[in-house]
């Protein structure tokens, strides 16, 4: 039997005898003949070897060996071997949600450490134990702001990932919220436009730092302005950049979210990833998802439990703060292991390395005829360039030369068809950057 079924024929017979029935069929008597499948045309089973061969064949159809300068919210960072070695331990990945805390202290403590790491990284007071991904985390943050303020209007910068903005619109389609988008000037959030949109109905302003164009900003002024009208500020951040950049906590932002893929998770063609969300302690009861808290046991020993469960769907059902049940505990585990390995000093260096390499790339690329590196705003490891030709055509030609050159902005910003964003992580070497520039020069001017 190839279904990982343990029972032998004899054991089946013994169990049937206990049940006083003659065959397993008798157990399915509630399923009447009229419920029977009209078809069940699934292929015959295969051996492990055959399935692995099939999948290796499919994997070979995907392009490998391409050098990525592609980011757009998902980054090619190096993941130390210890991350997957530890997260691949069966004790972690084959456990379930820690409902029974006595036999789940491993997962619970790791999640507590994860929450603490997210807090120190973002400068916030409390974090939950993870959400699905950066996009759904931003949605949950907006819902949280609507609940806290009991208002209905959301002001969003065009610098927020266009993918996230599309998700927000889908999720709130039936809820009659008023979404207003403000533009971006010289790469930065347009203050004037945002301030004009802030009124007594506004629940929150949604920002991103660095924004989708790569621009790094200090949003403290927007926070101050919003505060005057009791409007919350939500900021979506790129965690690696926080090795250097002013934190949302230092800007007094109310709710921080982000995509945690860059904290030790493989690209995996889109998932699973990690959504993080952190906020001020006064809003902890409005946070969605699981939260791990410290306590003591009957012997007075420190230990960890799921806490504030009365917010959650399995207790509060339709009155819960969110419908989320499963989060991404294993991804949070990978992230906390990654952050512990890279460490305090290593994380600063990592961020600096990303910045330095991206600045070097900017300098080299700016010298190419037909490439204009957008200046005026500081950037971190991703930046916008204007090309002399359609950016989609350029990226297409660059793939043939072995580079994923960047993300053409025309897909989401129709008036920016000649622009693309280029990401440079710590993995890109000086030589790769020079080769990339050479290839781009050849495509544009060759």
């Amino acid at each position, binding site marked *: 039997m190839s279904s990982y079924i343990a029972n032998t024929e004899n054991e089946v017979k013994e169990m049937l005898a206990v049940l006083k029935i003659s065959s397993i069929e008798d157990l399915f008597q509630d399923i009447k003949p009229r419920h029977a499948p009209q078809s069940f045309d699934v292929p015959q089973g295969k051996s*492990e070897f055959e399935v692995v061969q099939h*999948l290796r064949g499919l*994997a070979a159809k*995907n392009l490998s060996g391409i050098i990525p300068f592609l980011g757009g919210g998902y980054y090619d960072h190096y993941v130390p071997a210890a991350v997957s070695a530890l997260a691949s331990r*069966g004790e972690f990945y084959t456990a379930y949600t820690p409902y029974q805390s006595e036999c789940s202290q491993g997962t619970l403590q790791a999640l507590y450490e994860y929450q603490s790491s997210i807090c120190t990284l973002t400068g916030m007071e409390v974090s939950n134990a993870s959400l699905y991904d950066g996009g759904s985390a931003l949605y949950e943050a907006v819902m949280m702001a609507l609940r806290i303020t009991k208002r209905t209007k959301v002001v969003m910068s065009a610098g927020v990932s266009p993918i996230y903005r599309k998700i927000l619109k889908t999720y709130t*389609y039936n809820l009659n919220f008023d979404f207003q988008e403000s533009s971006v000037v010289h790469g930065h959030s347009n203050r004037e436009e945002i301030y004009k949109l802030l009124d007594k109905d506004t629940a929150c302003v949604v920002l991103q730092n660095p924004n989708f164009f790569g621009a790094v900003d200090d949003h403290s002024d927007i926070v101050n302005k919003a505060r005057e009208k009791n409007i919350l500020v939500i900021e979506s951040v790129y965690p690696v950049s926080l090795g250097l950049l002013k934190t949302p906590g230092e800007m007094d932002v109310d709710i921080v979210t982000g995509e945690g893929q860059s904290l030790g998770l493989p*690209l995996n063609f889109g998932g699973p990833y990690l959504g993080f969300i952190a906020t001020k302690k006064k809003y902890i009861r409005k946070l969605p998802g699981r939260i791990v808290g410290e306590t003591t046991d009957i012997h007075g020993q420190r230990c960890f439990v799921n806490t504030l469960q009365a917010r959650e769907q399995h207790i509060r059902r339709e009155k819960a703060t969110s419908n989320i049940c499963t989060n991404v505990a294993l991804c949070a585990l990978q992230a906390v292991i990654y952050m512990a390995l890279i460490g305090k000093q290593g994380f600063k260096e990592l961020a600096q390395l990303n910045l330095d390499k991206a600045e070097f790339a900017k300098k080299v690329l700016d010298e190419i005829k037909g490439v204009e590196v957008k200046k005026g705003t500081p950037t971190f490891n991703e930046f916008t360039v204007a090309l002399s030709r359609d950016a989609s055509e350029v990226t297409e030609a660059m793939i043939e030369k072995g580079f994923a050159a960047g993300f053409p902005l025309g897909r989401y910003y129709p008036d920016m068809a000649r622009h693309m964003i280029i990401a440079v992580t710590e993995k890109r070497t000086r030589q790769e950057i020079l080769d990339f520039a050479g290839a781009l020069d050849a495509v544009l001017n060759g």
Partner: protein
Amino acid sequence: MELIFEKSVEGRQGYRNPCGDIPTRTQLPSGLLRKNECDLPEVSELEVVRHYTNLSQLNFSLDTHFYPLGSCTMKYNPKFTESVAQIPGFSELHPLLPQLRNGEKFTQGALEVLYNMDCLLCEITGMDAFTMQPLAGAHGELTGVMMMAAYHNAKGNKKKYILVPDSAHGTNPATAATVGYEIISIPSDAHGVMDMGILKQKLSHEVAGVMLTSPNTHGVFNPQIDQVAELVHAVDGLMYYDGANLNAVLARCRPGDVGFDIVHINLHKTFGTPHGGGGPGSGPVGVKESLTRFLPISRVEKKADDTYSLNYDYPDSIGYIASLYGNFSIILRAYAYILMLGKEGLMAVSDHAVLNANYIQKRLKPYYKVAYDRICMHECVLSAENQASQGVHAVDIAKFLIDKGIHPPTVYFPLTVKESIMIEPTETESKRTMDLFIQAMIEADALSKKDPDRFKVLPQTTPVTRPDEVRAARELKTNYFQ
């Protein structure tokens, strides 16, 4: 155990960054830089490895313990599905690559996996099309109910309510409320299924749909399921199938054949992908023809030349429900699992899951009240009501089992059964393992009569005993640095 932060020593480094081959160091304007330190731990790689290895050993897991957590389907997660997920051709693939012009041709293998899974899940459930995007079961529910709303909006239907049986998972009412519907809870009848009489009373033209788990969380398959569908369709309501328990009826009943319009599947339940200590999951959603135009974008399609592409051109689509294409590496694991088991293997899953649950129910019936005394499906719901009269509650029995090296069943769910103990052995456990569990449950019952007070200090074999949850909620210490 000490926290990783408590092991930190100033100046210690566990990781070397790639070399800085760029001579110039860039300085950003100081106003853009963080002033407060990011206090990540300063530890060696060995300390990290030892710390998290030791932490892992504080967990019960499927690989180490019997884990009959009802409703969660803790079946064996085949090791080879882990290894295929790590093939670099998949794991290193950038998700935005197919969004570059002509970029799809560089991700054909990954798109083929998604397309093939769509076809397999359609055949397994009897639906017409799937989206692989939902990132967990509850996210699938959200997607499904949003499509339900889109369907009614398109038809100009004025709908206000979603009906949910009282035995439903909490995610069902929470999801329906998230989309803006009001919930009407329908009680269960004496057989453990939704009360038909009350259902008929509550059904009206304002009902958008009914969300059902089949078999339900009492472990009961409703033999009148097709009649329920007829009644709901008569008011132009939609039937939503919560696929949490699909593993009980593989190849025996497809939701699409008995009147369901929308289905979500928890890949981490029926198709053996790991639960990860609480995720990541994956919750693909399938729909009938009448709803396919509302499916989220993108959709993976096979073209005439046998290549695969992403199609975003569906004007009636509810839009983006996830950033990308779903939890790809989880979908990949489930794909490998389905290919390996094949038709007969999937049939055997349900046969043995149901046999095992009935065996446990029958053996424990002399000792524990059975919530619904009839044949069960893949899980059985017992009640510790008799033991509770001695002062020994479901939670106490759970702690007793931990000392026996068994992860407790689900307790206090479903909410409809007092002192409920919900047991789901799954098909991958042997009779021998179940006999040890049964023996432990019988001992717990005996001890409840002899020495009920003893339970209050259990478990004793674990590093901690009975954490103070009230204190945790009162003091709310959720961050080491606070």
